[in-house]
């Protein structure tokens, strides 16, 4: 028996990195998903302003909420797509056969989803500046921190639920039905934090909302890490 035939399990983080790279490469080759997401989210933002009428003050005041609702709706599409591409050619079975920890699949997929949603956020920012007339120049580092943590908070539970609903009937209904009520604390805190960055933080409460958001993310990344092997096992 030569040593080269022995199956050598690769490390968790390395495997997760490889899966992340694979997902991003697939995405980069077509760029179909991000294009669709951007158009969907921009359309949502426009629809909010049409639904409310051209009241600039009102739109500016609620800009953070509209932006996150647009991101949330678009992220549902992104999340379900991330497991649909695996289900289409049964490649998830292949991933399960790889001699590594199935938690790596969670880490890779969740990071990939977070990157997608964060990219969407970055593209939406100038759109939001243009149509809602907010100014983001002074708080840009803070704002990107809030956006990044918000994307992490959506992606961990989103990845678990997308993996579950990808194989269920009526998955397009199921994913938002499971995910939206669950994300209420994340949505509350991320909208609050974004609004505080955009409009100025008079009572210094940004820190506590960010803390809540971080707690939410940490809890669900840990929970997803723990239960994901159960979700994709046969």
């Amino acid at each position: 028996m030569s040593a080269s035939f022995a199956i050598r399990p690769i490390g968790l983080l390395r495997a997760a990195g490889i899966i992340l790279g694979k997902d991003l490469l697939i995405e980069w080759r077509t760029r179909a998903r991000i294009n669709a997401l951007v158009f969907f989210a921009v359309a949502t933002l426009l629809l909010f302003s049409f639904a409310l009428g051209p009241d600039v003050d009102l739109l500016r005041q609620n800009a953070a909420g509209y932006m996150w609702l647009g991101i949330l709706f678009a992220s549902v599409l992104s999340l379900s797509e991330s497991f649909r591409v695996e289900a289409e050619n049964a490649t998830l079975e292949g991933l399960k056969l790889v001699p590594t920890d199935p938690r790596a699949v969670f880490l890779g997929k969740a990071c990939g989803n977070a990157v997608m949603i964060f990219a969407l956020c970055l593209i939406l920012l100038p759109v939001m500046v243009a149509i809602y007339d907010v100014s983001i120049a002074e708080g840009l580092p803070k704002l990107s921190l809030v956006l990044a943590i918000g994307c992490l908070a959506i992606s961990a539970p989103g990845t678990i639920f997308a993996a579950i609903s990808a194989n269920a009937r009526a998955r397009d209904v199921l994913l938002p039905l499971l995910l939206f009520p669950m994300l209420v604390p994340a949505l509350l805190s991320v909208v609050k934090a974004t609004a505080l960055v955009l409009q100025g933080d008079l009572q210094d409460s940004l820190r506590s909302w960010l803390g809540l958001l971080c707690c939410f993310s940490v809890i669900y990344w840990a929970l997803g890490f723990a239960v994901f092997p159960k979700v994709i096992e046969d």
Partner: protein
Amino acid sequence: MLYVTIALFALAVGLFALHLFWAKARGWVWKAVAVLGGAMLPAGAYFGLSWAPSEQDMGEVYRIIFVHVPMVWAALLALVVNFVASAAYLFKRSWTSDSLGEAGAEVGVVFGVVGLLLGSIWGRPTWGVWWDWDPRLTTTAIMLVLYTGYLALRKFVDDPEKRATWSAVVGVIAAVDLPIVWFSVRWWKSIHQVQSNPKTIDRSMFVVLVFNVVAFMCALFVYLWHRFLIAKAARAREVALPSALPPAGPQEAA
């Protein structure tokens, strides 16, 4: 009245414990609980509607508390059952904990919806509105949507084993989420207005409330047990189905 209520409470808890720990008694304990609950529910309604004194500020309307609070507590207890069953399933697969999870979620949603409607009926004359963004109310509503999602997931997955695993995962996630929702909504709300403290209630009202809670727990127990039996029978049929069919072809057996 106080001692009678305590005795009835002890009796009900004793019966639940008997059911839980002594498998042979399961045939008849639920009937005893049903009789107890069937007697206590009308009595509790009588105590709530006429025996308890009227309240200082809310007058008569507060009497809704005697059905609203037990209903919501029963719903919460059913969802705790769901959480325990879900967590237990993730540690050790068994159709018992899967069925118990299904029973807990469904009974919890039914009791929760009614409890929320009762709270709304109460809110109309006392707050002047049907709905208020009170943390308890909001969290209850989110809880109901979450567990409706859980039940929908169970409906939409046909493979019993996958359904059991996935719904257990969702059950655990939903239960972990609820404290965070409560906390965040309270925080979100506290920026707008200060929470009002519930007043300490009169002792006779408290006794009537506990009496009704015991009565509703009995009802909850009976419903949970029967929903559990239905779920378990359904699992038995699903799992037994292939052997009842003619022998499967080789491509199906693979």
